[in-house]
């Protein structure tokens, strides 16, 4: 296998990969006079086009990806990324639109944004959506700001946000970024929100409860209506983290269950690709009470025309430039139209089927902390394997040798040594069985040959990497070695 160097290591003077047309205007002498012109960009790459193409093609082959195989990553919803969505998003009419173009020249774009917002309202049971937030975390922050703006306008500024102990890390950090103090609500034996603890913590100084439903254990918060009542009774808002929406599409709408504001991850539920870490999109949906505060501009339909409305005096303002990750929205719209209402319902049905199939198949091999029914994901732990000194990290790294990406491990914090598995609805039975088989073999290896797990992975582009050294002595960019 060719180990591909850094581009700086193959760069050399005089190589070019792109040519510009000759300057066709008369060159102004001394056009740079008085400007702080840089002498050079030391060590900036100079390579040929062939070198660029080989460089990135080789690097791409060092990546695992959905197009290669299964990612059982809980709460990430690594479903198949349809290629027709890529085609739709590459149309020149979309791609070459300037965001400040006069609205009458970009009616297609405005229609995309309005329609996807309307469809999200229908799917989530909400009254209005904004597509501006660029990711789930930014959606959470936006949601918190909407709540805060509404409460402040009512003269009822509150200081606390409640978050279950099973929540994703973005929840407390988003609440904190909005100036709120975070208080934890405990989960009960079933893995759901402890209603007594919630009631105890729910005071009139609490602005909101941030709830993930189904939660990070894959368990549906079946008391959600009671939860909503407890929160509303004291004048607070129910925020839903929609990261796990894949279990609910067409089955249950958060808006019908008392949720006031929700964010959806288009790069999860709506199949837009993860791209190795973005771009995603985190549209936020609200009920009428919070609608006036949505970021500007809102996209509206007036007769047959679409328009941008900036005249919204109670808006929280902007959370980023322009309108959000527009091309991501195009992909998600294409997905919704490809599936139609039956297909959208089938997402949840099969996601839940696939997950329960895995759960049933592995429940004797791995410890399941909670035996509540789970929907689209389930969380095992390394408890059984720990008896042989094996931790979830070792299991994860060994899975790589079996050709599968490891499951989520960093959370939820309430399960020590967690292995959070979410297959999504697009996996075939064959791929599920390969995964199940690998997990069973690994459970066996944990008993008979733990060393092979501890030293895994063995067959990857690189083997286990020293993350301690990386953090102790950070080397965060390439630099030319200084000759002594």
């Amino acid at each position, binding site marked *: 296998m060719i180990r591909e160097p850094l581009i700086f290591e193959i760069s050399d003077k005089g*190589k*070019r*990969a792109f040519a510009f047309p000759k*300057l066709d205007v008369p060159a102004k002498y001394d056009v*740079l006079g008085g400007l702080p*012109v840089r002498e050079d*960009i*030391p060590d*900036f790459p100079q390579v040929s086009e062939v070198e660029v*193409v080989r*460089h990135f*093609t080789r690097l*791409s082959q060092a*990546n695992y990806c959905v197009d290669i195989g299964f990612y059982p*990553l809980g709460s990430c919803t690594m479903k198949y990324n349809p290629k027709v969505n890529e*085609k*739709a998003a590459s149309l020149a009419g979309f791609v070459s*639109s*300037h*965001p*400040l173009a006069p609205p009458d020249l970009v009616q297609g774009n405005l229609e995309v944004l309005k329609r996807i917002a309307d469809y999200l309202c229908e*799917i989530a049971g909400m009254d209005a959506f904004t597509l501006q937030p*660029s*990711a789930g975390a*930014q959606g959470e*922050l936006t949601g918190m700001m909407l709540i805060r703006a509404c409460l402040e306008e009512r003269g009822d500024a509150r200081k606390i946000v409640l978050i279950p102990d099973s929540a994703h*890390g973005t929840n*407390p*950090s988003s609440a*904190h*970024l909005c100036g709120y103090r975070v208080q934890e609500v405990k989960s009960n034996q079933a893995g759901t929100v402890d209603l007594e603890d919630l009631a105890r913590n729910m005071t009139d100084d609490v602005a909101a409860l941030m709830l993930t439903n189904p939660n990070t254990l894959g368990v549906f918060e079946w008391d959600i*209506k009671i939860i909503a009542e407890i929160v509303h009774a004291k004048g607070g808002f129910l925020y839903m983290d929609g990261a796990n929406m894949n279990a609910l599409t*067409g089955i*249950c709408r958060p808006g019908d269950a008392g949720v006031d504001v929700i964010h959806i991850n288009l790069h999860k539920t709506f199949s837009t*690709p993860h791209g190795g870490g973005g*771009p995603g999109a985190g549209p936020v949906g609200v009920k009428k009470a919070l609608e006036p505060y949505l970021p500007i501009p809102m996209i509206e339909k007036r007769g047959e025309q679409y328009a941008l409305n900036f005249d919204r005096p109670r808006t929280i303002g902007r959370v*980023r430039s322009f309108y959000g990750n527009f*091309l991501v929205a*195009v992909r998600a719209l*294409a997905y919704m139209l*490809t599936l*139609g*209402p039956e297909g*959208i319902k*089938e997402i949840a*049905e099969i996601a*839940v*089927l696939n997950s*329960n199939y895995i759960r049933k198949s592995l429940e004797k091999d791995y410890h399941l902390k909670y035996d509540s029914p789970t929907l689209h994901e389930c969380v095992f732990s390394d408890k059984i394997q720990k008896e042989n000194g094996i931790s979830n990290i070792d299991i994860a790294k060994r899975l*790589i040798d079996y050709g599968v*990406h490891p499951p989520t491990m*960093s959370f939820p914090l309430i399960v020590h040594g967690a292995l959070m598995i979410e297959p999504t609805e697009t996996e075939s*039975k064959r791929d599920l069985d390969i995964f199940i088989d690998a997990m069973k073999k690994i459970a066996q290896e944990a008993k008979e040959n733990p060393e092979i797990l501890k030293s895994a992975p063995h067959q990857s*582009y690189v083997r286990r*990497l020293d*993350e301690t050294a*990386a*953090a102790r002595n950070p080397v*965060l960019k*390439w630099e030319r070695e200084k000759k002594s």
Partner: protein
Amino acid sequence: MSYISLSDQDKKEMLDRIGVSSPEELFCCIPEDIRLKKGLNLPAAMPEPELLRHFEALASKNIYPKYLSFLGAGSYVHFIPTVVDYLSSRGEFVTPYTPYQPEVSQGTLQVVFEYQTLICQLTGMDIANASLYDGASASAEAVLMAHRLNGKAKVLAARTLHPQYRETIGTYTKNLAVTVEEVGFGGNGEINLQELAKRLDKDVSAVILQSPNFLGIIEDLKKIGELAHNHQALFIVAVAEAASLGILEAPGKLGADIVCGEAQSFGLAPSFGGPYLGFMGCMKDFLRQLPGRIAGQTKDVDGNRGFVLTLSTREQHIRREKATSNICTNQALCALRATIFLETLGLLGLKEMALQNIQKANYAADRLARVKGIKRKFAGKFFNEFVLEFPKDLQKVNDDLKQKGVVGGLALGRFYPELKNCGLFCVTEVHQKEEIDRLASLVEEALR
């Protein structure tokens, strides 16, 4: 059409193993009264040929691509080498997850490492992160970072910082203990140095400005940096037009402590505003307060070089409410495009692109300033954008131009009431001489 991969037989076997007769039974834990009783009210499923026709029709409702346009203002049109689309559309780049399992993500991680290096080279910073959402949110993150670093509560922001960046900073700081005050611009389009000097006091956490600024003018970063540092304030430089870094001195060499901004010019089409590419870098003492993901170099058990996400304890998934930021998903694929773009253009290409921008923009500015009634509003030096003042309402001129297939400069009145009748024009290497000449003659006609 759905993307399910189960046959009828598969479903049967799986349901059998679980011990239920239909997927319906698996939803028993959801209370009846919140179950949807009818189907979603959405358009019927469209098979691929129909879907593509539908989207082609949608896309062609945008007639903007048919127009010759001179819009900039935070979104720039540059030539994008074919290899950028070609390479960045590989499934191995588009469909992987965030590289939390580095052994199977070396492609993504090495690209991020190269991207970080390039940003540092261009900005003169010691360290850069793996990307943020866009220039506006990057500026907001930079302001919050400064506040975390020195605990001071006041930020002075240039009025010539992109209006949307200022709005975003306002939204982010509204609920926190940071206040942002504006410093105006002078007759030459640069930040008003006297006003800045007067407003700098011991309570100022940072000064943030944009260069080239929203009005197109290149600021004297060295002088401003010195002023800021004399008052123990951090100096944040925001760059909205990253292409300018191909020729202008690195802000890091001119005193910047943090450089942030928008790298959309590096390989991303205007895309109606997104996805874009926020970037951020800082000097090494500030490393622990830098938000966002960072890739670092290390070795594996066999001694081979590899890359990992590192210093994760700054981030939300570990530090939770005490994190440097809440950012999780960022803009990795856009950073890949930028990396391919920069490595393809290379040193010579980047320089040439920047030079052509300056030459063509200067040609356009001179040509248009010769039109009767129009004058350059600001005398300062610019990169590829400049402001022209018109003798009458710019809107009427623009309407006229639009009728003739041209989108003129951005009318500034709605952002800067003091600049009504002014338009911001952007000219890049993509504009041909004939097109610039055409703009000039049409403007001439419109003013007659």
